[in-house]
């Protein structure tokens, strides 16, 4: 009886352990394959040249630049908006209040909407509605300028998609600022906003940065929202203004693997592009994890 029980116990532990192991092994498998397949093709030239010969040769420089610009514009919009929302939720309203619950519900809903729906929205709202409105306003002659997919609309779509990431991260950081510090400031006859600005936000800087990094990492990896809001197959030059289209790493990878004229020949390029994309998101995620770890430690010891 006892022995059977012990055996069963061992079986349970082994089985659950195997599940965990398989999940870990999958990660290692994917990473190993991509690193193995891609590392030889990553050269300075690959990183700094444009694709050539019908995208079967050359590098991915425009896609790197495009991705960078995309997430930059996205962060410039999304991080402040997300931070302010988090400040509002944690400093200005009661957690239990109707307003807080409604906004939180909206944020949660936003976080759950599929990326492709954001893409549709970007097309319907930014390109076809806002863009068209701007064209009507600025160029009565009827030339299409803003009512086309471009990097601005793609960035804004992504900013919306990553907004919940920023909000959650900043809120978490704001929670770690001890109540004592707030009270110390308020007891000196300092107003609420000044307290937030001088005490709460400086002490949440880590969380804001973490939120920004996580958002960038998420934004850099999402392709579905930019499919029809601004990404382009191939462009002979880099985007010069926010109303230009752009190339992007993930989109470039998608195009190369599914629409390339010669899939076999470009396989090394595909691997290398994947590796670059993966390294980029990893570097971002690792720094976010590291910062969050430091943040948590502070909460424990402070």
């Amino acid at each position, binding site marked *: 009886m006892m022995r059977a029980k012990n055996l069963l116990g061992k079986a349970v532990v082994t089985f659950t352990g195997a599940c965990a192991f398989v999940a870990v092994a999958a990660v290692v498998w994917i990473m190993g394959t991509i690193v193995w397949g891609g590392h030889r093709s990553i050269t300075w030239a690959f990183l700094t040249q444009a694709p050539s010969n019908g995208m079967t040769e050359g590098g991915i420089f425009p896609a790197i630049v495009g991705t960078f610009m995309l997430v930059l514009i996205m962060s410039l919009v999304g991080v402040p908006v997300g931070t302010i929302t988090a400040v509002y939720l944690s400093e200005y309203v*009661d*957690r*239990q209040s109707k307003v807080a619950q409604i906004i939180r519900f909206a944020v949660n809903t936003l976080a759950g909407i599929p990326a492709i729906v954001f893409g549709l929205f970007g097309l319907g709202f930014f390109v076809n509605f806002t863009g068209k409105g701007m064209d009507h306003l600025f160029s009565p002659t009827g030339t299409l300028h803003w009512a086309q997919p471009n990097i601005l609309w793609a960035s804004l779509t992504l900013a919306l998609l990553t907004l919940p990431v920023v909000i959650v991260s900043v809120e978490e950081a704001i929670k770690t600022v*001890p109540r*004592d*510090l*707030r*009270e*110390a*400031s*308020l*007891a*000196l*006859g*300092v*107003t609420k906003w*000044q307290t937030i600005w*001088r*005490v709460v936000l400086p*002490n949440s800087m880590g969380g804001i940065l973490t939120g920004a990094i996580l958002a960038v990492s998420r934004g850099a990896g999402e392709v579905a929202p930019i499919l029809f809001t601004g990404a382009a197959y191939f462009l002979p030059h880099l985007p010069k203004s926010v109303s230009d289209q752009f190339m992007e790493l993930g989109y470039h990878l998608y195009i190369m693997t599914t629409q390339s004229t010669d899939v076999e020949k470009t396989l090394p390029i595909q691997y290398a592009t994947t590796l670059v994309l993966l390294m980029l998101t990893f570097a971002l995620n690792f720094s976010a994890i590291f910062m969050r770890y430091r943040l948590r430690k502070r909460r424990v010891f402070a």
Partner: protein
Amino acid sequence: MNTMETAAPYAKLHTKGLNLYYGQKHALKGIDLDMKAYKVTALIGPSGCGKSTFLRSLNRMNDLIENVRIEGSVFVDNVDVYNKKVDEVQLRKKVGMIFQKSNPFPKSIYDNVAYGPRIHGLRDKAKMDELVERSLRQAALWDEVKDELKKSAFALSGGQQQRLCIARALAVEPEVLLMDEPASALDPIATAKIEELIWELKSTYTIVIVTHNMQQAARVSDYTAFFYMGKVVEFDFTERIFTQPKEKQTEDYVTGRFG
């Protein structure tokens, strides 16, 4: 007690029928209390008796806590601070507070003291230096830190941190200091320093101190109020509270029979 004795102290703060509720809990029950100018008023009583809550309602710090409802009045210089027209920010400038746990900002010693005045608009560097020094001197900390003003406040010992918090409060030039068990986390030597400081500060400020420690109340205060179950059981000169209390409960408490 001192030379000012002959002049009657006027009630810098007084409360009238002050009731406070945390949700359903009735935490303060109709408190009427005078706190005289340039005197130290000690609030004593067992934990949970409402003395800290009372203290925090004097500069409206309880406004920050959810589900708190307040009835009655708190007068500071005869202005009801719970009047809708009174600005709690200005009130707190005038009625400073020292907390139980020292809570310096994660900044330098200098910046901690300069924090309040800077926000209140003091830009002049020389004046700021002067104010910081004066505040630190008043808090009896200057000699210990004058050479390391740029150091983090966290480098200081517990007692020094608490005196830094006092200096920080003094720098905004309040008239009243509310102290919420300022020495409860400190060792006896640091506690003695804080008590000495309170004794000196009362010539310039009206002080209300919550304390757990009856000896401390006896040492530093002129008046003592004994709180029990959200009520003031007895309020009198400190000497009388400790030598000839009128109420049985007070006597039991100060003689250490409960609490």
